[in-house]
């Protein structure tokens, strides 16, 4: 079997400074096989395919194409071996025509007329109607994806890598795409299909490799599995039991009522009628696979985008829906965004300057417009010592710290402002186990003092361990929050895979796109 494999990976390992993204991954794809790569975000799927496509190089392990050793230094090498890739985010020029975009993306020189005929032929063969003279800016998202696919197909690939291809498509477009992929596979082209959508994988793929924490958990035939069993493989069944921290929910502090936001990014997720409340003294956890509206939710809560009406978001009974971030902070809201450098902190500024960014109002660092630099430096020192941040001094740029230490600094900066509501995204991303435990402890202590804490995370173990109530965000919708103890792994996995309400979500999505 392995002799016949088109692509074979053996013991692929990739180490990043903070995390082992891939750990001894074995994978084998036969010609004409549609092979699913399944896993939560952060499981190592994209790192793996980037190595196959030559964007990154593995630290250990070998890759073979048709039995020959394969060491791609750049995507050009991958394409030369017949490996094509369609990215989740397209790389197309809006102002150019379909044919011009395709000509830019292929390595061989071809005359424009030849190319146009080829485009029409290929797109008709595979049921992907495409007019080469159309300007890309006028195409729908599904049609743009076709351009990317046709660009790959023109180079007669033997393996096509598709990264989350359906996340931006309508149900009708998904149907067409699946037919195309099946046709391709029938013609002998292998397909590596990356997704976390369980039903799709069950209907399309004949083999699935499940990744968790960079390791292959299982290779199976998804058609013989249930969505439930796949979910379990993906997130693991060894979740920590929810712990009783003696947290007692007090008064309602943060109320979000029917928050609906259209994403300004064409690939972003629209938030649809999100409602929840957080009481003082409790930790509400929001789980979900990345890209399901977490970023938009965070932006709306910070106030980077105003909500539709003042009462959409209320804080201790006060309407905050239209308030700017500074005003929300003044009233007691603090935030830790998901992205550390570039959003929550400025890489090229010193630690003490970074405290001014979000703590200036609550910590009195500004008087009549003038900055009190020594107050800022004092607060930065307080954070560094309280949260054990490894930094030479507070005069060092945030850039010079490791990711985990930046995270500790930002979390500390917000917690030490004693907020009445704290909203944290990915509180322990990239920090070591000891520091993660410290951050969890700090969040719980804050809740004990009466703060309402909202944690948005992709780490289920973390949410299980610290949250008192629990909800799942999927496709821009939030499930009904439930006490953490009442949730089962299956239930969470299905909610994350968008299974129970998938029909409902996709049909509405379709209407919007038409």
């Amino acid at each position, binding site marked *: 079997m392995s002799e016949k494999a088109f692509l074979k990976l053996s013991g692929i390992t990739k180490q990043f400074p903070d995390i082992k993204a891939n750990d001894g991954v074995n994978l084998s794809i036969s010609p004409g096989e549609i092979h699913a790569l399944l896993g939560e975000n952060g499981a190592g799927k994209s790192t793996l395919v980037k190595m196959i496509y030559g964007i990154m*190089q*593995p*630290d*250990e*392990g*070998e890759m073979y194409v048709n039995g020959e*050793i394969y*060491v791609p*230094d750049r995507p050009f090498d991958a394409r030369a071996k017949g490996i094509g890739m369609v990215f989740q985010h397209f790389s197309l020029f809006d102002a150019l025509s379909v044919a011009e975009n395709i000509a830019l993306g292929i390595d061989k020189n071809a005359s424009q007329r030849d190319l146009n005929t080829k485009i029409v032929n290929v797109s008709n063969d595979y049921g992907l109607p495409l007019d080469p003279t159309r300007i890309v800016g006028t195409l729908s998202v599904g049609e743009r994806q076709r351009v990317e696919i046709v660009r790959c197909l023109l180079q007669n690939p033997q393996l096509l890598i598709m990264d989350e291809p359906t996340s931006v498509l309508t149900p009708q477009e998904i149907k067409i795409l699946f037919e195309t992929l099946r046709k391709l596979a029938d013609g002998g082209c292998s397909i590596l299909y990356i997704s976390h959508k369980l039903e799709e994988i069950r209907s399309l793929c004949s083999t699935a490799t499940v990744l968790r924490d960079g390791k292959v958990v299982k290779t199976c035939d998804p058609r013989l599995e249930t969505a439930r069993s796949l979910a379990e493989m993906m997130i693991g069944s060894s979740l920590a039991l929810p712990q009783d921290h003696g947290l007692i929910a007090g008064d309602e502090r943060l109320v979000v009522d029917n928050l609906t936001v259209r994403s300004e990014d064409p690939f972003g997720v629209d938030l649809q009628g999100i409602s929840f409340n957080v009481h003082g003294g409790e930790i509400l956890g929001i789980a979900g696979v990345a890209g399901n509206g977490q970023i938009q939710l965070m932006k709306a809560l*910070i*106030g*980077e985008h105003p909500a539709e009406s003042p009462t959409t978001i209320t804080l201790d009974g006060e309407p905050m829906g239209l308030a*700017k*971030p*500074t*005003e929300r*902070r003044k009233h007691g809201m603090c*935030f830790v*965004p998901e*992205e550390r450098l*570039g*959003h*929550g*902190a*400025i*890489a*090229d*500024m010193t630690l003490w*300057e970074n405290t*001014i*960014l*979000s703590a*200036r109002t609550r910590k009195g660092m*500004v008087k009549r*417009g*003038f*900055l009190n*630099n020594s107050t800022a430096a004092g607060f930065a020192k307080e954070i560094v010592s309280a949260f054990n941040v490894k930094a030479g001094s507070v005069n*060092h*740029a945030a*850039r*010079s710290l490791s990711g985990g230490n930046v995270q500790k600094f930002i979390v500390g900066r917000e917690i030490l402002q004693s907020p009445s509501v704290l909203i944290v995204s990915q509180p322990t991303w990239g920090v070591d186990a000891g520091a993660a435990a410290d951050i969890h402890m700090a969040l719980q202590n804050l809740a004990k003092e009466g703060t309402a804490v909202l944690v948005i995370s992709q780490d289920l173990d973390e949410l299980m361990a610290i949250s008192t109530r629990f909800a799942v965000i999927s496709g821009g919708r939030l499930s009904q929050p439930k006490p953490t103890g009442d949730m089962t792994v299956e239930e969470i996995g299905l909610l994350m895979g968008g299974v129970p309400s998938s029909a409902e979500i996709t049909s509405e999505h379709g209407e919007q796109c038409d």
Partner: protein
Amino acid sequence: MIKLELRKETSRVMLYSTPIFAVLLTIAASMIMFAILDKDPIKAISIIFMQPLSNTFSITELVVKATPLILIAIGLSMGFRAGVWNIGAEGQFTVGALCGGCIALVFYNVEGFWILPLMCIAGILGGMAWAAIPAWLRTRFNANEILVSLMMSYVAVLLLSALVHGPLRDPDGMNFPESRIFSDSAILPILVEGTRMHIGFIVALLVVVTAWVLLSRHIIGFQVKVLGLSPRAARFGGFIESRVIWACLMVSGGLAGLAGLFEAAGPVGQLVPSLPVGYGFTAIIVAFLGRLNPIGILISGFVMALTYIGGEAAQIQMNLPSAVTGVFQGMLLFFLLGIDVLAKYRFKWFHHHHQKGT
């Protein structure tokens, strides 16, 4: 293959020493250039860099040239820090001179202490108005302010020329395209008798100090820096991008307008089509050479003024082509940007094929 890799942290010493290296490299490269032109390189360099410092009159002329450069560069540096690229200071300079000059011409036979302040205000407002066009187009339609402000410069220069050829022409001026000479009430007080060094230099010094305080101690300066380094972090911090863009363009436009008025009411003393001589563009180099730091700009303003005066002297005494000043300034910016790359990144050599585990 060579790869550039971002250094973890650029040391302050390196950051502040790069302009000095840039000046030294410019001197070295221009000496080679002079040698190729068959001129004595040592003599040329000493004329350019030493002669202007050798007598009092040259030094005051240095101040006259440095004043507009410093004023404009301080304003531009605010925007450059915030990522607002006002390239049209030349136009704002011209319109400032025009607006202030109009006040002088309207009151040409009136005496009064209030005329100069009024001219200054008109100059500032004129520069601001010209900068408001790119500011509005950027914040309303996301139009690129680099292109808009640059194009507006040419409009401004032609506008000045058209007005001086037409309605503003001196009725007693024998049809020369010049305005009336400003009255004494509309001319800037001179600091050193018998020279052209005017009170504008004191204003420039005050502006330097104010800018330094704003940038290091005030929330406005902080906002400007944050927006330039990371627009998303600025939104997280609750800063409003469009407000900062407006503020930057208003400050740089106003200061350029004031510099223009100082030029018209100072060394020139009237409105002439040749009033804009490129200070607005040279100030861009001054701002970067001074590391966008007010004190640095004060120093680099003088270095750049030196190339103007010394370049002129070299042209006259050594028969060098008139392009020498421009070549000098261009090299300076080129070397500065080049060395900056080396200070922020380090070269990494890597072999094309590093096969592992075969």
